[in-house]
């Protein structure tokens, strides 16, 4: 059975095992690095495409200094005019952060939304991921008051999941106000410099 223990062979054995394992992990990591990045990029691309009108050129990820904004993308048509924005935005949900991709037209109306990650309760708040539900359908072309109807807005909340619905609405509102700031800010840009920090990543 197992070999007798003494300090030399214990140290040797542990070192050897750790070295071999580290080598294996290093190798697997270098092999999977590209596919992992591709998978992440493909997922981002897919979520962006889902919330924007078809066609046009989509920029790389841009950063903005605003509450809950993780980054945004600008979609331009052939002549370089802005068609829409896709904004990655996070708000605190019921079970944890709720991260959305929100497509916003330059006039501040919502084109479409999609859920990137969430930790809401299955069967309740997690219904916000059901794309065919009324809650999700109402966001297409939404331009009303951004608050759930309980709070006096135009958003119909998911039944029994007001906190999730509020978080969803808040995340969308963050995206819309960012777009309004950019749209308003670009005019100001030449005068005083925008409050929005647009650096290429």
């Amino acid at each position, binding site marked *: 059975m197992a070999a007798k223990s003494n300090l030399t062979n214990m140290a040797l054995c542990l070192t050897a095992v750790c070295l071999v*394992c580290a080598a294996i*992990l290093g190798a697997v990591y270098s092999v999977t690095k590209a596919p992992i990045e591709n998978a992440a990029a493909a997922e981002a691309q897919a979520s962006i495409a889902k919330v924007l009108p078809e066609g046009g050129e989509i920029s790389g990820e841009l950063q903005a200094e605003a509450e809950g904004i993780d980054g945004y993308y600008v979609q331009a048509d052939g002549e370089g005019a802005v068609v829409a924005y896709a904004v990655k935005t*996070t708000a605190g949900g019921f079970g944890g952060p709720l*991260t959305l991709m929100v497509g916003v037209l330059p006039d501040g109306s919502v084109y479409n939304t999609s859920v990137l990650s969430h930790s809401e309760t299955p069967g309740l708040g997690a219904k916000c991921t059901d794309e065919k539900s009324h809650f999700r359908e109402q966001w297409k072309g939404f331009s009303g008051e951004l608050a759930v109807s309980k709070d006096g807005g135009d958003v119909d909340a998911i039944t029994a999941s007001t906190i999730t619905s509020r978080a969803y609405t808040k995340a969308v509102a963050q995206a819309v106000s960012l777009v309004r700031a950019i749209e308003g800010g670009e005019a100001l840009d030449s005068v005083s410099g925008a409050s929005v920090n647009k650096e290429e990543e």
Partner: protein
Amino acid sequence: MEYLLIIISAIFVNNIVLAQFLGICPFLGVSNKLSTASGMSLAVCFVITLATVVTYLINQYLLVPFGLTFLQTIAFILVIAALVQMVEIVLKKVSPSLYQALGIFLPLITTNCAVLGVAINVVTKQFTFGGEAHMLNLGEATVYAFATSLGYGLAMVLFAGIREHLALNDVPKAFKGLPIAMISVGIMALAFLGFSGIV
């Protein structure tokens, strides 16, 4: 205020056993008697808090700067195993009476997934205490870990109390032992659902 939210959320709303399903094996294993349950809870409390602080620092100052975050799992489990050994040795020397009380539980803790689970959660997940989603800083992480382990202790001690009573009852043969224990935990978890939404 935020610390208070973290504490309430970690103990009641997201109770580590009843809502997050971590550390179930020792939870079922040593909850036969109230005395062993409280001993185990103390040991877990100690190790979770210590391990979270140490792994947080290792992640922040060693793994992240060198781009080695993919080694998180393996690094954390080794740190925890070493830490448990060290606690055992130190405790033996410094406080033999405490060692007597916790000693037999310490080796079991390495494979308690609550310890590794909390350590990984703290460095990978965003939390939303007090509105905005953010990663925890060291202070919050420590409080979160400590409160989580208190929640573990609470669930454990409550459940041990229930089990001591269950042992005296005449349950159907097929239900004897773990099945009835499992069902009791289920009912306890139902009761804890009542806390959801308060934070």
